[in-house]
């Protein structure tokens, strides 16, 4: 019965009904028990859109830049989906999502669906949820998907795994070249943007990024582009827009896009397998073990964690060999 309701939601979403699309996203976001069923229905319709990731430190103007890109995309008759991720409080789990403040979408003239997400709300990892949510938008007819996250640590790697083109935004105040090298943004960027370029120091950071890109052992056949913009003043956006599409055209040559997406799918499959295994392990297998007693052994220094873990896994595998499968439950 419930599957029928979901079938109808999916049907209406594919026809562009915003309420239904919003509800489907909520389901994958909250790791609803029917979320896998939703993705089963949605996935075959996805894979047509162009995925752009936008990341960078807080306060560099990501949302403003995205707002300008949306306007430019819409002017060129594209329909756009946006997923904007903001961090959530590690204490309350709540979040203040402020990306929409900068967004000025004229809904009568522009075909845009924008969704805010808190990083803590996404069960099963940021990468998985943003991917699934953007696939829903893709399947429902959005031609360009923009995923925006704050680049502090893991999230920029996740965005690289979920998108075709990664845009890293910095400002003249983003620090010297060592700071940027530390941040791990160098490896994932296809395009650099130095926003707020009307401020002093823009030229310096431009040169230091250019210099660093030249001094690397990484073999790349795409040379990352660097753009100077001032998004709030709508300057440099057209050039950035063209730059993004030039990366897309590059991807389309020699089936680079296919290569990149296959690599991402294989990575996704791997982590999903690990995820499934972990769930089975914790839910069905290890609950039989007396973990408290084992921890006590560790505490008393009768065993060490590394060898204990190995012993447990070996026992499980022996079990597996006997029964032909991991014995569930009892």
């Amino acid at each position, binding site marked *: 019965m*419930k599957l029928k309701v979901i079938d109808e939601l999916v049907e209406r979403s594919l026809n562009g009904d915003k309420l239904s699309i*919003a509800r489907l996203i909520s389901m994958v976001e909250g790791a609803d028990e029917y979320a896998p069923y939703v993705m089963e229905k949605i996935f075959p319709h996805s894979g047509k859109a162009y995925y752009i990731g936008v990341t960078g430190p807080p306060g560099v103007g990501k949302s403003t830049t995205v707002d300008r890109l949306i306007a430019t995309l819409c002017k060129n008759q594209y329909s756009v989906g946006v997923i904007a991720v903001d961090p959530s409080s590690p204490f309350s789990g709540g*979040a203040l999502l402020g990306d929409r403040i900068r967004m000025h979408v004229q809904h009568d003239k522009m075909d845009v669906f924008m969704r805010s997400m808190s990083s803590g709300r996404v069960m099963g990892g940021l990468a998985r949820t943003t991917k699934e949510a953007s696939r829903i938008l893709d399947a429902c007819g959005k031609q360009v998907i923009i995923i925006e996250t704050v680049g502090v640590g893991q999230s920029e790697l996740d965005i690289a795994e979920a998108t075709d083109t990664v845009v890293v935004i910095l400002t003249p105040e983003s620090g010297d070249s060592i700071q940027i090298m530390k941040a791990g943004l160098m490896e994932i960027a296809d395009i650099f943007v130095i926003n707020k370029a009307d401020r002093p120091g823009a030229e310096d950071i431009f040169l230091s990024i250019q210099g660093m890109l030249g001094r690397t052992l990484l073999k790349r056949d795409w040379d990352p582009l660097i753009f100077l913009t001032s998004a709030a003043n709508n300057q440099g956006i057209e050039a950035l827009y063209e730059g993004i599409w030039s990366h897309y055209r590059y991807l389309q040559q020699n089936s680079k896009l296919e290569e990149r997406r296959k690599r991402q799918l294989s990575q996704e499959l791997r982590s999903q397998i690990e995820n499934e295994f972990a769930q089975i392990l914790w839910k069905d297998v290890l609950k039989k073990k007396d973990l408290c007693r084992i921890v006590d052994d560790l505490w008393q220094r009768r065993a060490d964690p590394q060898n204990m873990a190995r012993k447990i896994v070996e026992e499980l595998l022996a079990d597996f060999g006997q029964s032909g499968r991991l014995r569930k439950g009892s």
Partner: protein
Amino acid sequence: MDRKIKVVIAKLGLDIHWRGVYLVAQYLKEAGMDVVYLGNKFPAEIVEAAIEEDADVVGLSSLSGNHLSLGPIVVDMLREKGLHNVQVFMGGVMPPEHAKRLEKEFGIQKVYLPDTPMEEIISGISTAVKNARLTGPVSYEIKSD
């Protein structure tokens, strides 16, 4: 499905007073809700955000006298678009009799006037959302059999 409460909160129209709305947003966040803050927005944009965000609650801050003109429009537009489950709350400065009218005649769930304890706002929102989720129309809210 036990989802976190999602609140879309905005300063209504051209209202520039930000302290109250920031404070409420901050407290709701600390109460574990996801708060989407829109800044200054007019009813059409607020409703659009509520649709896309799959919001449980719309919160409107009004201190400039537009509560009776713009507040009811938000409620009407939400219902028109099929969002029958979204609870609309208001906060700000207005004559208490206006607040009563908004609640009685215009479908505002509750108006919180100055000096309302924050706990009252948090529990008011939580309770309204819980009730709405229990009684919401089946066509939109997915229910287990």
